[in-house]
C-alpha cells in the first residue's frame, strides 16, 4: 500500500544495473520481514477458511469425524430458513443505521473537538473512551441500563418519573430490542470513527479553509464544500470498516440478547454461532460462515471498485 508513496522518480538509467541489484536485496528483505506475518495469516486465516468450506459440505455435529457428505444441502437450507432472512434484515438495519446516524454523529463531534474550543481535550477523551473499554464490559453495562425493572435500570427509572408512562421492556420487546442494541453499538463505536475523522481533519491544510473564509464562505459552506470533499478518503475508510464491522458484529449482541427474544436481534454472527456451537450443527454453521465471508468479500470488491477515485489530498 505504502509503496505508492515511494519516490520512483529518482531512478535513472545510469544506475539501472545497480538498482536492480538493490531491488533484489530489498525483495529478499521484504520477504523476510513478511514471512512471520504470512505464516500466521496462512495458518489462522486462510487455512480455516478452506477448512470451513470443507466442513460446510457435511452434516456434521463437530464431534468425531465428519463423514456424512451432503454437498450443497446446507447452503440451500440456509437460504430457505426464515430465521436467516431475519438475520439479513437485522444486519442491513445495523449497516444502514450506522451509516445514517453513527458516522454523521462521529463526523459532527470530530469537527467540534477538532476546533480550538475550551475543554476539547477532555471531550475528545470522553468520546473515545467507549471504544477503549472491552466490548463485554460495555455490553454488561448496557444490560444494567436497559434493565426493565425501574428499581434496577436507569432508563426505566427516568421514564418512571414522567407521569402517565409505563416502563419500556427494552431487550424483552421484539420490536425494540434491535434499536436498543443499536444504541449500545453506536455508543461503543462512534469514538473510533470520530478518531478517524479527526486524523483526516488534521491533514487538511489550514490555508485552504482560511482562503475560503477570506473569500467570504460561511463556516457551514466551508464545511460542505471544503472539509467534506477533502475528507472523502477518510470517509471511504470509515464506511468500509463500519459495514464490515456491522456484518460481523457478535459480542455485544450475544451478551445483551443472545440474538433474542426469538431471533428478533439475530445477526449473521449470532446465527452462525447458534448453529455451530449451541445446536451442534457445525457443518451448517460453517456454511453460514462461508456466506458471511462471501458477503464481506463481494462488498469489499464492489466498494473498492466503486470508490476507486483518487483522493483530493493524497492523490491515492
Amino acid at each position, binding site marked *: 500500500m505504502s509503496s505508492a508513496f515511494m519516490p520512483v522518480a529518482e531512478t535513472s538509467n545510469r544506475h539501472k544495473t545497480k538498482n536492480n541489484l538493490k531491488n533484489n*536485496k530489498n525483495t*529478499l*528483505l521484504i520477504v*523476510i*520481514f513478511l*514471512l*512471520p506475518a504470512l505464516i500466521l495469516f496462512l495458518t489462522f486465516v486462510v487455512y480455516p477458511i478452506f477448512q470451513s468450506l470443507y466442513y460446510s459440505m457435511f452434516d456434521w*455435529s*463437530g*464431534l*468425531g469425524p465428519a463423514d456424512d457428505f451432503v454437498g450443497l444441502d446446507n447452503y440451500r437450507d440456509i437460504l430457505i430458513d426464515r430465521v436467516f432472512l431475519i438475520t439479513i434484515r437485522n444486519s442491513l438495519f445495523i449497516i444502514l443505521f450506522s451509516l445514517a446516524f453513527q458516522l454523521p454523529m462521529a463526523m459532527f463531534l470530530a469537527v467540534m473537538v477538532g476546533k480550538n474550543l475550551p475543554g476539547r481535550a477532555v471531550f475528545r477523551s470522553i468520546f473515545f473512551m467507549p471504544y477503549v473499554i472491552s466490548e463485554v464490559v460495555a455490553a454488561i453495562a448496557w444490560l444494567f441500563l436497559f*434493565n*426493565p*425493572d425501574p428499581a434496577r435500570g436507569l432508563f426505566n427509572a427516568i421514564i418512571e418519573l414522567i407521569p402517565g408512562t409505563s*416502563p419500556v*421492556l*427494552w*431487550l*424483552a*420487546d*421484539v420490536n425494540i*430490542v434491535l434499536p436498543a442494541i443499536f444504541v449500545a453499538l453506536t455508543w461503543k463505536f462512534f469514538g473510533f470513527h470520530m478518531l478517524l475523522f479527526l486524523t483526516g481533519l488534521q491533514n487538511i491544510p489550514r490555508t485552504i479553509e482560511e482562503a475560503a473564509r477570506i473569500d467570504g464562505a460561511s463556516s457551514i459552506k466551508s464545511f460542505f464544500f471544503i472539509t467534506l470533499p477533502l475528507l472523502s478518503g477518510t470517509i471511504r475508510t470509515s464506511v468500509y470498516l463500519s459495514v464490515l464491522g456491522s456484518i460481523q458484529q457478535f459480542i455485544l449482541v450475544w451478551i445483551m*440478547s*443472545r440474538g*433474542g*427474544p*426469538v431471533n*428478533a436481534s439475530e445477526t449473521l454472527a449470532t446465527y452462525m454461532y*447458534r448453529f455451530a*456451537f*449451541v*445446536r*451442534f*450443527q*457445525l457443518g451448517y454453521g460453517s456454511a453460514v460462515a462461508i456466506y458471511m465471508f462471501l458477503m464481506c468479500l463481494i462488498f469489499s470488491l464492489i466498494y473498492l471498485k466503486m470508490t476507486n477515485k483518487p483522493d483530493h489530498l493524497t492523490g491515492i
Partner: protein
Amino acid sequence: MLKKISIFIILILVAVLAFSGCARPVETPDAEPVAQTPTPAPAETPAPQDEPVTITWWHIQTAEDHKGLWQKLADEFMADNPNVTIEITVLENEAFKSKMTTVMQSANPPDIFQSWGGGVMNKYIEAGLLKDITSWLDADGGAWRETFSPGALGVYSYEGKNYGVPWDMGMVGFWYNKDLFAQAGITNTPTTWTEFLQVVETIKDAGITPIALGAGDKWPAHFYWGYLATRIGGSAGFNAAASREGAFTDPAFVQAGEKLLELLALDPFQPGFLAATYPDQATLMGNGEAAMELMGQWAPGVQRENSADQQGLGDRLGWFPFPMVEGGKGHPADAFGGGNGFALGKDAEPAAVEFVKYLTRAESQVQLAELGLALPVVKGGEAGLSDPMLLIIQESSAAAQYFQLYYDQALPPAVGSVINDSVQAILAKTLTPEQAAQAIEDSAANEMD
C-alpha cells in the same frame, strides 16, 4: 555490508523465534524430585501409581458452600494421594455449556466434568469422547454399582455401558414464597391446572408478581411446556414421539403450548421475562419479589446466592408438585426433572475414576445432603438430608411411576435446542402452539429418523 549484517541478524531472530515455540512443551524429566528414592509402594494405598497425575475437573456449582465442599473433597483426595493434582475450573452454567462445546469439538475434554446425561452425553459417546467406566463399576462384584440407585445411574449409561455417575437426582416443581401466598390469601397449594391458574390470578390481583421466569435462558421456560406435555401425553406420548412412532405434532404437544398460552394470558411473569436470565429469576425469588418459580431441586441454593442478603427465603420457602392437567393421560405423580452427575473424558487417568468414586462415597453424599444442596443418589447419603423441602422432593421423586428426563437433555442437542427456542417463541407469541410443535417435529425428523 551493513545490509548483509542486518539480513543475517534478522534471519537469526526469525530462527530463534520459530524454534523457541517448539522448545516449550519439552519438559526436563530430571527435575522431578518424586522418584528419587525407590521406596516400596505401601500396599494399603490403592493409589494407581506414584507417577504424578494431573486431573482436570470442571463443575458448575458456583454457590459458595457447594463450591467449598467440592474443593474440600479435592483437597482431601490430594492429601491421601500426594501424586495427584486436581485442577478445578468453576464455570457458570451457560458459560460451561459454551466452553464444553468448543473443547468437545476439538476432542479435548476435561477428565471430569458436569453432565446431565441423556442426548447431549450420547452425542459425546458416539464421537468416542468419553471414557467407558463400566469395568470400574462392576469391579469386586459390582461393589461401586451397588451403591447407586439404579434409575439415577442409568441416566449416565448408553447401550449398556456407563460413562459417568450421578451425585444428585431430583425433580422440577413449584417453589413458592409462603409469605406472599398468605398475603394474597391463598391457603392451599393448587393441585390441578385450573386451580393453579386461579392461584396465579389471585396473586396477580393482590399486586404481587405471581411467577419469576428467566425465559431469556430458554431452558427455565421449557420446564413449563415439557411438564405440560408430560401431564397431558404421559409417558406414552413422549416415548412415541422420541421413538419416532409418533410425532412432536401429536395433540399432547400442541395442547401443552395451548395450556401455556392460557397461563400467559394472565400476564403472570415479571416485566421483561423474555430477556431475563435464570440468575434474574433466582434473584426475584431470593429477594421475595415474586411468589413462585418452576425449578429443580437446586433452586434454594441459587436463590440464596442471588438474593441481596445472601440468605434467600429460608423457612418462608415452600414446594408443591406441578399440578395435574384435567383429562391428561399422565399420572399426577409422574416427575419431570433430572439430576447432576460427573462424566469422564476419554483421556481420564485411572486416578480420575478413583476420585469420582471418592466424590460419590456415602460420606461425601452425606456432606452434600447436609448442606441442603442436592438429593443423594448413593445409599446411605440420605442420612444427611434434613432440609424439609428436599425430603418432600425426594419422596415425590420416589413415588413417581414415570420419570421424564428434561426434554432438552433427553433428546439430541439440536432437537433440545429447538424445543427451547420454540417455547420462548410461544411465550413471545411469534409462534403458535401448532407452529412450535411443527418446528420441533421438523428438527426431530432431521436428527432422529
